[in-house]
């Protein structure tokens, strides 16, 4: 039965996430925006709380929530960990997206491990904070062109290469590194490896200074003859040309809705703050009087809120499909594309509507407008999502629709 409301059983989780965001993220938002590269110690308490939530089986509070349940009754509709996780993420990012990205043990690497690790690996890496390293100086969206190599040598793989834009790379306990087993064999040869911090040859080059999400550290690594145990390769070690990229790409089906949720959270924050400022200025949003006689500011606000609504619902749809074991690559990309571009547009327009109040550091609107932009870039840019959606709808390969 069609119903697009948040189920009551997830109400507690949403409320907890909202309160954490309001009490811990918001008061520290500006502080860590200004003190870039300083570790937000306030997060340790919250991280412990989330670990507790995850251990309790309530799920949905962190990156591990994206693991797909293989069991369960397929005919019965479920609202599971994926939906809970995007809902929690929306609320946390309503608080501060940079701080959420800095949450210990909630890295995208954790989502990758949750998505593709086997049970042994899942157990071995439990409790570890894992970052994700895909991008290289000469390869961004074109992840099939990865140059970092992994060569099997006895019981270890030996990794060589360079990785940039690794979110939480400095603070994390481990980094999930994408590398190729054989550059001549293309996508199928790309595998992901868990590299623990302190492994010899795994060297931090520097941290980036950024437009936004400054609370989150972004690292640049060099890998020189880094030896990792064979058992640290996530997924299938064989080069299966037919399955191609599928293994590592599966991560994206789960992480893209999460990034979409981040964007939805930032957009929600900007809209709420703008509505508050407009209300102070004597402008109330009347949802019935939306025609050409509505004030321009009301009309603009409604258009932004409508984009928010679409992004929010697309994100929930992608997560709902994951919970119900339905292939969701298309919906995950749609959600990411819509949420990424809408959050950026919404945050920027809200700054404009609020005038100097929005542009100055007196409010967080300008910060959200800076933070939002990354959400239309990482985990696949807007254009990559459009390519994925278009290829799927048109039935085109990546060789045909480039």
């Amino acid at each position, binding site marked *: *039965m*069609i*119903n*697009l*409301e*948040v*189920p*009551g*059983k997830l109400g507690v989780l949403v409320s907890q996430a909202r309160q954490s965001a309001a009490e811990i993220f918001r008061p520290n938002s500006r502080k860590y925006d200004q003190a870039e590269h300083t570790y937000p110690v306030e997060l340790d308490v919250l991280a412990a709380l989330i670990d507790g939530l995850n251990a309790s089986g309530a799920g949905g509070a962190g990156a591990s929530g994206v693991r797909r349940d293989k069991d369960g009754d397929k005919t019965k*509709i479920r*609202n599971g960990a994926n*939906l809970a996780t995007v809902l929690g993420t929306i609320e946390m990012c309503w608080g501060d997206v940079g701080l959420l990205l800095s949450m210990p043990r909630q890295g995208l690497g954790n989502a990758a491990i949750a998505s593709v690790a086997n049970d042994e690996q899942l157990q071995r890496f439990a409790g570890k904070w894992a970052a994700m390293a895909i991008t290289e100086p000469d390869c961004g969206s074109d992840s099939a062109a990865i140059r970092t190599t992994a060569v099997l040598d006895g019981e270890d793989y030996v990794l060589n290469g360079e990785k940039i834009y690794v979110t939480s790379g400095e603070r994390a306990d481990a980094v999930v590194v994408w590398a190729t087993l054989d550059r001549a064999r293309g996508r199928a040869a790309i595998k992901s490896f868990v590299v623990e911090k302190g492994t010899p040859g795994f060297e931090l080059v520097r941290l980036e200074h950024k437009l936004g999400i400054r609370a989150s550290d972004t690292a640049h690594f060099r890998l020189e003859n880094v030896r990792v145990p064979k058992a640290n390769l996530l997924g299938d070690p064989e080069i299966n040309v037919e399955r191609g990229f599928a293994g590592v790409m599966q991560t994206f089906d789960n992480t893209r809705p999460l990034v979409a949720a981040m964007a939805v959270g930032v957009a929600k924050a900007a809209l709420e703050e703008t509505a508050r400022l407009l209300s102070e200025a004597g402008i109330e949003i009347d*949802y*019935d*009087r*939306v*025609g*050409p*006689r509505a004030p321009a500011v009301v009309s603009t606000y*409604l*258009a932004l*809120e*409508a*984009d928010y*609504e*679409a*992004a929010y*619902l*697309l994100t*929930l*749809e992608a997560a*709902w499909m994951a919970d119900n074991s339905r292939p969701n690559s298309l*919906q995950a990309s*749609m959600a990411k*594309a*819509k949420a990424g571009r809408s959050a950026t547009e919404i945050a920027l327009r809200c700054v404009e509507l609020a005038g100097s109040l929005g542009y100055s550091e007196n409010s967080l609107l300008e910060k959200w407008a800076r933070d939002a932009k990354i959400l239309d870039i990482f985990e696949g840019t807007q*254009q990559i*999502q*459009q*390519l994925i*959606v*278009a*290829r799927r*709808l*048109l*039935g*085109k390969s990546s060789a*045909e*629709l*480039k």
Partner: protein
Amino acid sequence: MAASSADPAAGDRASRGGRDAMGLSLSLLNRLAGAPLLDRLGLRRPVQKAVYEATRTGFRTAAAAGRSFAAARRLGKPARPATAAAADLFDLTPTEDQRLIRETVAEFATEQLRERAAEADQRCATPDDLLAKSAELGITLLGVPEELGGIGTGRCALTSILVAEALAGGDLGLAVACLASSAVSTALVLWGDADAQASYLPSFVGEDVPAAALAILEPRPLFDPFELRTVARRGSGGFVLDGVKSLVPRAAQAELFVVAAELEGRGPALFVVESGSAGLSVVAEPAMGLRAAGMGRLELAKVHVPDTALLGEGSTQTYTECVRLSRLAWCGLAVGTAQAVLDYVIPYVNDRVAFGEPVSHRQGVAFKIADIAIELEGMRLATYRAAARADAGKPFAREVALAHRLCVDKGMAIGSDGVQLLGGHGYVKEHPVERWYRDLRSIGIAEGIVLV
């Protein structure tokens, strides 16, 4: 005919000696008849036919004669569809009934509406057999509770949205024609008292469903449904209505109207008006799109209606709900039309070759396809959310407004992109995309007409 002062053509007419719509039609006929170009291009017959079709209702001096709506068995109190507590689960799966209804209607839309849409668009009329078939499908019955002879078992905004979406997948103009009567029956179900329900609803659940129309729009710029110029004054034993209503579907055939008017001292309200009422007249108002729905202007000059004509006791809440549910219905229609655009352009851009390969191999084309799909899915989800809330008895003003905004803005963009993707082919009538372009412009303009 008293031309409304807000009518942009009124000044033009006055300068030429107070010519009204009928006079203008005659003048146009006269000029066309003398044009040698018509003969040379072999256009004389089609033009004569088109002029005839577009203006024939302009020659009518009164609305359709209409049947006499005699009160049948009257219930003690009006029957209202119950709202249903939704399952407490986020779910995008339609019920088995909804799936079946949608499939049946979609088949009718694809096989019959789409096939005959171009002709109906040109003729400004919907063929009677299509209307009969759509009535056979039980579209009107859906919203009428069982105790009133329908098949409804509760509020069914979402099911009605699925029906509207499926019909519009065939053709928007024909969909509006097929749904126009059920807007009136739905209004009677939701807000009619026991007498009104007993008088009118039996006809709507019978074999010969009357043409009927929900008339809210008025012909002026910056129209706001909450500031009406059509007025209802209290008179002896009822109300007296004056004003002009615009884009009234199947206006010339309609036997029953629900008309929005400013009730003196109370605000906007809905009145049931039978087409036989004195002072009612209809003038054809063919528009950019929705032409198959046979749009007309309804003019009310001192039209007397009884006390019982007022729906929902004239409460503001009733009227506001009507505006919202109507906008919601337009969202369903926009979603169906936009889906038709997407389904049409995909094979076209894959087949069309330029510079040695299908045009779909270019990002400039492919990204438009992606964006159509992304925005369409957002429109659909927002529309379903609003409808599900209405069915569950939850507040839905915000959700309708947001869904409507998406459907207006993105729907029109999709209509425009649909033509653009076909290039010159999109601009000619060999392909339906130019019609969808014209039709989709209506979503941001229409108020009333359809209702869920």
